[in-house]
């Protein structure tokens, strides 16, 4: 049961919370038997240890992952609430693999980055961070919808506290808004989930929450969800809307994004980093994992809407970011813009678009996380974030300026850095599906270069006008480690994306096959009509140069 080889994913998920358990037990034992408490420092160190262990385990997942296989790997499944068809069922595939690795990577980095920043209530901080990690890992790895839902909402609570306790002056408002927005969206999804659950039970005769069937049995994914001829609330269209709402709030897509600037600005540095780096990905992850395969017809029908909102988000986010005075807010709005890219990439529904979107999710996690952490470093020194407060920082903090520049470039999507690969693939895919959307989205790339570089110039170049900045110390050794750690993957992805794209390839192909199959099922059910039929079956212009030839050949089969 505790075998590392057999239960690797469980280890990944539960190591942080087990660490919490150990620490709490030690704390309690200390209080009871020795009437003294563990020091803050020991909590921090232990927390760091568990986070690193978690990262190591996630790397192990990558190492043991078979890139050829498009299906679930390292699956674990055991009965949990059998009466309701609820299993403890985890598995990883090409879609979630890098999100898991990225999540594992970001936690130790943020912990290290906040080593001195978070000075009060350290134990609670470590507690909530580790809990958060369990929630996030669990949500990425769950293959039972109930389990997914549980983790999905569970990770909100630590984040609620992290923003609320260590956040800025308006933290209470921001954290409540964050929580209620995301929760309200997902609650409706619960109803939708139940509807599908019972449709599935009706079709297959037993209650089942498994997303992908296990051992030959059917899963939720096999449910035939009608497009017409049933009560309206059982049709793909409405169910997609319900699911889409939950995920769109989380992404956040354009009209639902208002919680994001508040939360990001008020959150402490590690909070912002994790929020931007991981939590936002759950929205897009939800689309690609659940909403699109479950309701392919509706996804195609509504792809126009998503494109519209996505482009609106890209341009709106960029424009709003341009006028921000607060660096953090600027980065926050840039997230809205970037995730708009991810959304249009997903709904292009071809190999490039999907892969680009997946890769861009990872990219955004790293580069935006890095930006927030770097901003945190300067904030720790100056306790202000207004762009106007700075200027000429490059002179006093050259190392910092360098790393910030790399992160900025990564965010803009400069070639050789990670952002470029993702955005390029997305635009490629989108152009194939909807040329005008790609054209409009491209303006977003340009705009992002404008606002990011403009910001960079105002902060780092020019004369050193503000006296307060004169005595700033450059990065400490610890901060350098953090910065280097964040920069390395940017280059890696930018220079050699194939190591990331290869495992995605099989999974995305598998996903597209599934969607086509479901489209055909619906079509036969409806008597020959399927919106999916309008999709180009094989996408032209595959970018095989990005990929090793043998892998692409296999993926094409």
């Amino acid at each position, binding site marked *: 049961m505790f075998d590392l080889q057999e239960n690797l994913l469980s280890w990944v998920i539960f190591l942080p919370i087990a660490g919490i358990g150990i620490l709490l037990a030690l704390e309690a034992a200390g209080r009871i038997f020795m009437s003294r408490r563990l020091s803050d420092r020991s909590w921090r160190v232990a927390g760091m240890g568990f986070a690193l262990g978690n990262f190591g385990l996630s790397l192990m997942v990558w190492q043991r992952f078979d890139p050829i296989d498009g299906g679930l790997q390292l699956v674990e499944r055991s009965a949990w609430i059998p009466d309701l068809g609820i299993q403890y069922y985890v598995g990883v595939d090409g879609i979630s693999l890098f999100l898991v690795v990225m999540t594992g990577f970001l936690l130790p980095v943020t912990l290290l980055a906040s080593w001195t920043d978070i000075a009060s209530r350290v134990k609670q901080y470590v507690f909530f961070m580790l809990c958060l990690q369990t929630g996030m890992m669990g949500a990425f790895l769950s293959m039972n919808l109930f389990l997914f839902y549980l983790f999905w909402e569970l990770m909100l*609570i630590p984040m609620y*506290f992290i923003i609320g306790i260590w956040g800025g002056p308006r933290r209470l408002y921001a*954290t409540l808004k964050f929580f*209620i927005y995301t929760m309200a969206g997902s609650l409706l999804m619960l109803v939708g989930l*139940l509807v599908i*659950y019972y449709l599935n039970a009706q079709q297959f005769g037993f209650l089942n929450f498994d997303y992908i069937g296990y051992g030959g049995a059917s899963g939720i994914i096999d449910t035939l969800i009608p497009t017409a001829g049933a009560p309206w609330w059982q049709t793909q269209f409405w169910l997609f809307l319900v699911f889409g709402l939950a995920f769109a709030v989380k992404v956040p897509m354009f009209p639902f994004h208002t919680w994001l600037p508040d939360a990001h600005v008020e959150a402490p540095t590690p909070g912002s980093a994790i929020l931007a780096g991981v939590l936002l990905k759950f929205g897009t992850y939800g689309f690609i994992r659940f909403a699109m395969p479950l309701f392919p017809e509706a996804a195609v029908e509504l792809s126009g809407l998503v494109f519209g909102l996505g482009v609106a988000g890209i341009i709106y986010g960029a424009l709003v970011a341009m006028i921000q005075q607060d660096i953090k807010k600027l980065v926050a709005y840039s997230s809205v813009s970037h995730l708009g890219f991810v959304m249009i990439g997903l709904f292009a529904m071809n190999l490039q678009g999907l892969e680009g979107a997946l890769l861009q999710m990872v990219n955004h996690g790293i580069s935006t996380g890095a930006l927030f952490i770097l901003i945190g470093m300067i904030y720790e020194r100056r306790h202000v974030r207004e762009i106007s407060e700075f200027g000429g920082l490059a002179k006093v903090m050259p190392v910092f300026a360098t790393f910030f520049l790399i992160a900025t470039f990564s965010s803009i999507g400069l070639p050789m850095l990670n952002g470029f690969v993702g955005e390029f693939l997305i635009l490629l895919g989108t152009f194939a599906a909807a040329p005008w959307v790609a054209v409009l989205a491209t303006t977003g790339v340009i705009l992002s270069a404008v606002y990011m570089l403009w910001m960079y110039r105002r902060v780092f170049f020019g004369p050193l006008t503000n006296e307060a900045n004169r005595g700033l110390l450059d990065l400490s050794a610890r901060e350098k480690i953090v910065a280097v750690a964040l920069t390395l993957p940017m280059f890696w992805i930018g220079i050699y994306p194939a190591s990331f794209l290869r495992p995605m390839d099989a999974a995305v192909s598998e996903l597209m096959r599934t969607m086509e199959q479901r489209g055909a099922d619906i079509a036969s059910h409806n008597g020959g009509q399927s919106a999916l039929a309008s999709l180009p079956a094989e996408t032209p212009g595959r970018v095989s140069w990005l990929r090793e030839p043998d892998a692409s050949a296999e993926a094409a089969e």
Partner: protein
Amino acid sequence: MTAPDLDLGAVAPLCVVAVGAALMPLLDVLLGRTKTFLSRPVTAAWAGTVMSLATTGVLSIALVMCFDAAGAAPRTFNRDHPMILMDGMTSFLNIVILIGSLLTALASGKFLADLAINRGEYYALLLAAVLGMMLLVASTNLMMLFVGLELMSIPIYAMAGFRRDSLRSNESALKYFLVGSFASGILLYGTALIYGATGTLSLLEIGARFDVDDPVLLIGSGLLLVGLAFKIATVPFHQWAPDVYEGAPTLVSGLMATTVKVAAFGALLRVFQMAFGPIDDLLYPALWVMAVLTMTVGNVMAIIQQNTKRMLAYSSVAHTGYLLVGILVGTQVGISAVLFYLLAYTFMTLGAFGVVAVLAHAGRERERIADLAGLANSRIFLAAVMTICMVSLAGIPGTAGFMGKFYIFRAVVEQAIATESSSLLWLAVIGVLNSAISLVYYLRVPMVMFMREPEPGPEPDRSGTFEGLVLAVCAAAVILLGIWPEDLNLILTRVDVLHWASVASASP
């Protein structure tokens, strides 16, 4: 005159509680007179602890008996004229009631001492009320239902006013009393009309003889439901609840919000299942509206409350709404969902009231939500328990509250799909939207505790050993029920509507 055919074993747990209720005043007197046979008198605090432990003991014995009975075949006390039915559902509800009251009794010792209302009558009243509740959920006859209801209510009236030096407690008791008796009166007249229309008091026979076109019977049923609705505080019969909960001693409020509600719901379930089957269609729209209103009003009103107890009162109104949804569905899945929800609800509400009770030291009560500020710094244990309870009440996954709501909504959706009824689906949608509204006020409590600086003043009291135990049990149960509800399923599957049918043959 032949002796009735009695089955004393069926009522053994009831007997235990009744004997306990009768002996508790004696124990009180005995403890007051220890001077005569001990070298020094027992202090009031110690006497209180002994009383609370004794009460807990009595309730535990009954609890064990109920657990034993849970799996057995249904029994009744008087086989010639069954008034009660000790079946799976009764046992389950009895278990819930006993757990709730047991925890309350255990925490009461220090609580009463802190408020300087350490009087032995409390425990006798508690036990009597518990007996009433147990009878109420077991009753299959309107007479038994009425007597059980009153046996439950009358001690609680007094317990609400147990802080005799506090005007608010007095007013709370008075208000509860007036509203409660008013409700009893309405219920009673409804019973009279039902009796008049059918000529029987047995629920099963009423169900069998139900003539849907008889206006007298319909009005009687309506009045009966209104009476019960007062007791469980559904909108628009809820207005007493916040005032009463606020004024009553906190643990008593907890008891009112949990076990009393459980018992009244048990009665409601019985009435619906046994007697009101034929008018399901008539009741459906009324209950639908009532459930929606109850959820919504409870949640919306809770948002603007400044007093923790008042907030919890409105929260309990809101939860009543969710429970009504389960009753409305009426399938076995729905009923087991209600039962599960009641258990989960008992733990989380009791935990929340328990935390407030720990802080309710005479003279410096911390009843406002703002008074909880900074509790996480001074008393992390209390803050943690409160947070767990709030999170559970809000229905966030991983807690009992979520599982409860999940069960309820799953029953709703199942039935909606089975009958293609979109009104049921809307009920689920409104339910989850209400959950979202409820986040606003539930999350405010942890927010205040963790994210606000405490006001200057003395630190809040530490929880006593038993109080701490109770709180820990509540928190642990909330989490365990949220993560491993399947053990409970073993009990739930015993809740079988079909068992009721077997009683039909037993009644004359």
